[in-house]
């Protein structure tokens, strides 16, 4: 099992979910984060003084999947989160971590069956 963490542009969430559902992946956890990447932040100005706010709003999406789902999940994320064909700086990253165990609190089930 893997835990997939995707950092995406906030407005891409809907598309991302659409893509994921089409690949039968519809369990996920989302949170708001600030990201610092290659993308330049917008310079903010407060009372005439410039602030380089180089941290940008992103969404962090966590998806736990079974190994056989990893490939299609990655594809779906890229499809859903990329801006246009070519993509834009700031579209984000995907991190794949090994997941040793997964437990469904409700039933106590473990492993692959608990993930879904």
């Amino acid at each position: 099992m893997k835990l997939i963490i995707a950092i995406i542009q906030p407005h891409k969430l809907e598309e991302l979910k659409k893509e994921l559902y089409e690949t039968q992946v519809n369990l996920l956890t989302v949170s708001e984060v600030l990201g610092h990447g290659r993308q330049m932040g917008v310079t903010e100005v407060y009372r005439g003084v410039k602030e380089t706010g180089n941290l940008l709003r992103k969404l962090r999406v966590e998806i736990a999947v079974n190994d056989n789902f990893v490939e299609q999940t990655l594809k779906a994320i890229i499809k859903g989160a990329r801006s246009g064909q070519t993509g834009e700086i700031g579209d984000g990253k995907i991190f794949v971590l090994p997941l040793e165990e997964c437990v469904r609190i409700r039933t106590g089930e473990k492993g692959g069956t608990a993930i879904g």
Partner: protein
Amino acid sequence: MFKKKKGLLFILLLFLMSFSGTVFAQTNAPVPKIDSGDTAFVLISAGMVLLMTPGLAFFYGGMVRRKNILGMLMQCFIIMCVLSLQWVLYGYSLSFSSGNGFWGDLSWFALKGVGLDPYPTYAATIPHQAFMIFQAMFAIITPALIIGAFAERMKFSAFLIFIILWATFVYDPVAHWMWSDGGWLKKMGALDFAGGTVVHINAGVAALVTALVIGRRKGYDNKPTPPHNLPFTVLGAGLLWFGWFGFNAGSALAANGLAVNAFVTTNTAAAAAGLSWAILEWLHNGKPTIFGTVTGAVAGLVAITPAAGFVNAGSAIIIGLLVSVFCFLMVGIVKPKLGYDDSLDAFGVHGIGGIWGALATGLFASKLVNKDGANGLFYGNPHQFIVQLIAVAITIGYSLVVSYILYKLVDAVFGVRVSEKDEVIGLDLTQHREGAYTLVE
């Protein structure tokens, strides 16, 4: 580029000194009697109406997404600034000086001759400038109502130009027709106590036009985006309800029985409409919402505006109960079907509400309430209803055409809509380079 600025300021200075002079003429004119109670009432009312625009800013600001709230607040505040100046410079003159059938002349340019003595034609017991500044607050909030239609996607610069043009070429003339001495709609006998046609229909129709021509927000799927901060919207509604007492009761221009009647009908209609909307939601969606209730209350305030000084509390209840029915249908059922994006329902609430209010005035108006008013259809005078119908039709038609022309003009010159990228990032950062809330501290 500071030089530019300096020059500009210098010219202004010269120009304004002349302005300063202008007050001379009038301040030693003969002085009719000022009533302190009426003056106190109109001044405080003016203050309350001024507060409505920040109220509206929060009413709207709470509904948009987090990335766009400052844009809404900014549009409201800059309107307070720009139109306050437009009004004292030439707006008041265009609207209320005699001038011609279409609008006033510039005889009151820069408040020339508009002094501290009463101007009985408009209000016999308060200083002329009190009437002027009270009217100023109406000229401010009216264009502000429109911004709900093109929320979250209009370029600030284009917005600013559009609003100034609109105030000048739409608001001022229509105000002139309806409220100025010898305005032809007034002469025709049309009743509009505090601005059903001049303010709400006028702005509501402009809202519809702009919403249609600017197009839908990116990713808009006929559903309102969840308001980012509903408490702000409720706060705004509270301030609006409060300020509306100044708006309607203040329009009596004196602290008299008429003002009291307007005050009572205003509160009653708002209450009836708020309740009515809640009930409709209960029947239609299973649960009443605060968002719906405050929307209904505002719709009720809109609908009673033209009628407040002509109808009694009973009629106010009917007007209130029904306005929510009409607006609810428009906002909750028709709009999603048609699929245009009047983002915050400026037309759905102010347009529809204003139309119903203006017509309802033609139904429920009664000389028992206001002997200087008229009887409506239900008091045996169908003619009044026709008159109201005509006034409504004319306001709609005029606002529709001219708002469209002005929009196209501004679009041609500046381009009205922000780039798709900016829309995605949000107006706060792209139009104003500031963020409303810190996410991480």
